[in-house]
């Protein structure tokens, strides 16, 4: 009960925080937060795979890009489309998930990662070279934000922020319902031992397939928001930087944690903002962030610091230098990373 109450309080605090931001932040920083929320949704799609199936994907941008291109292409053919364009974008992402899913979920750990990487690069290559439809490396500029509700314009930064924040909260709520449902619990079971779940009579393949498609849908939501945010889908939407940032956000926030992706995304977006004032070699920073996260915070920045803090306060000074204990089986949301050579 207390857990439930705590997470409810957390959601309310999040709601308050998100609604206060437009009042205290300048338009510029509000724009950054909007971008961070959009990327956080993308990271949540990676989180669904990593935290609940133990599959690390560096190709989530595939769904992201497919959705944003679908919105732009459809809007060009049907002038003034609003809800229908969004629906087309999401359907395209789901379709991509349905097509890639059967291939991708045949594989596990590093092979899954590599397959997703390859998918994303195929789409990148297609959008780059299929100029007549995708506009090549120019992308498809000039995508205007539609009036979803007549009379309410999304053109201003504040109104678009509100729209993105509402969608974000809806996604968070749906994600929470999804992973705490019996379905989500089966996914966790599959993550910990798929042979055991198979022995219990669950159709592991189908569960994985549905979860994969759901993650494609979430990635698609992020892609649609992104397309309207910048108004110009381009091949960079499929870039490795996008996918790998999303994955890093998940790891930083702690795989499986509901709001980990938001924390990771805020960290990455604001660090990138800070770094871009100093140097334009952002990739080095991203690479170092990857290396440091993996070496020092494999359970996520927040998880590791929180654990360190608990250790320190519960054990007192005499044991402060003792090494951290192994995580117990119950809270092993990152158990996926320690699969040994035997499998």
């Amino acid at each position, binding site marked *: 009960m207390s857990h439930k109450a705590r997470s409810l309080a957390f959601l309310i605090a999040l709601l308050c925080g998100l609604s206060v931001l437009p009042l205290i932040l300048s338009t510029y920083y509000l724009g950054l937060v909007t971008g961070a929320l959009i990327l956080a949704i993308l990271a949540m799609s990676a989180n669904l795979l990593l935290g609940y199936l133990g599959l690390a994907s560096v190709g989530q941008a595939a769904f992201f890009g497919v959705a944003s291109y679908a919105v732009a292409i459809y809007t060009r053919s049907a002038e003034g489309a609003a809800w229908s364009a969004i629906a087309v974008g999401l359907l395209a992402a789901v379709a991509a998930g349905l097509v890639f899913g059967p291939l991708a979920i045949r594989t596990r750990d590093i092979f899954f990662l590599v397959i997703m990487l390859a998918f994303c*690069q195929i789409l990148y290559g297609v959008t780059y070279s299929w100029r007549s439809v995708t506009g090549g490396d120019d992308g498809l500029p000039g995508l205007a934000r539609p009036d979803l509700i007549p009379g309410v314009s999304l053109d201003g930064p504040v109104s678009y922020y509100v729209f993105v924040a509402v969608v974000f909260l809806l996604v968070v709520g749906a994600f929470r319902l999804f992973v705490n449902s019996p379905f989500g619990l089966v996914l966790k079971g599959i993550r910990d031992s798929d042979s055991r779940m198979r022995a219990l009579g669950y159709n592991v393949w189908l569960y994985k397939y549905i979860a994969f498609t759901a993650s494609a849908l979430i990635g698609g939501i992020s892609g649609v928001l992104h397309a309207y945010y910048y108004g110009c889908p381009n091949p960079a939407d499929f870039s490795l930087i996008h996918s790998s940032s999303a994955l890093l956000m998940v790891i930083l926030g702690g795989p499986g944690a509901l709001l980990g992706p938001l924390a990771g995304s805020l960290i990455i977006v604001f660090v990138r903002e800070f770094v871009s004032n100093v140097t334009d070699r952002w990739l080095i920073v991203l690479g170092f962030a990857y290396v440091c996260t993996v070496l020092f915070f494999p359970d996520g920045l927040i998880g590791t610091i929180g654990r360190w803090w608990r250790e320190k306060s519960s054990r007192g000074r005499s044991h402060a230098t003792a090494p951290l204990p192994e995580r117990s089986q119950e809270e092993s949301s990152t158990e996926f990373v320690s699969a040994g050579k035997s499998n």
Partner: protein
Amino acid sequence: MEFWIIQSLNALSFAMLLFLLCAGLSLIFGLMNILNLAHGSCYLVGAYTALSVIAWSDNFFLGLVSGSVAAGAVGFVLQRFLLQRIYGRRLLQVLLTFGCMFILGDLAIIIWGADPTTLRKPEGLTGAVDLGGIIFPKYRLFVIAVGITIGIALWLFQEKTKWGAILRAGVDDEQMARAVGINVPALFTVVFILGTALTGLSGVLGGPFVGVYPGVDLEVLLLAVVVIIVGGLGSMKGAFFGSLIVASLDNFGKALFPELAMFTIFAPMAIILAVKPTGLWGRVL
């Protein structure tokens, strides 16, 4: 007919390049279960180092050696100081090498700039040679010869020498190898250096016809990934025949259906994944 022979030779030379690239990747994976995503970066480091050394010394073969050494040094640092700290945690290791790919790619831009270049071909191998009516670049024949030589040398090394036996023991059963007194951590480091140095070598060899530019690291990594998926990870035979298949598909795909070039490589990969996820010659994990 002439078209087919020239294209086959082209495919063969590209296949040898891919083989050198993937042999290291496969060797490392076979022994220590690490998929090194910074492999493309070793290619890049090898090629760029050779670029500088050749410009300085005007000697291609010095470039070949220095490129391999530089890539091997990168491999040494990566394995000894980074990967060994998280030994046994496969996915974290992959992500670590992934981060290193970003770092090395960007460092290369800082040091060598972002303009695409090619390596100069060695003297004596610049022109074309007449093979009974078929004109073919000498340099590509040279690449074929080097690839076959190294392939045979690797096979002899693995099958006929004491070091090869130690290596095979480590691949087959790491714990038993430790138990009979083989220094497995040292073996890991040596193999990692060997594998990355081979990749650096392929970078230098590929420099004159693939070119050196930012982003080539990811491109060759993806090709290597396709090869290991088709051929199977962890087997030298898989790397060799996988390279042949992928290079042929790539070459004939580009020559016959230029607009579908992406699919001629990736479609077979998808089919093999669907039918035989371990690859045609892969070890069962």
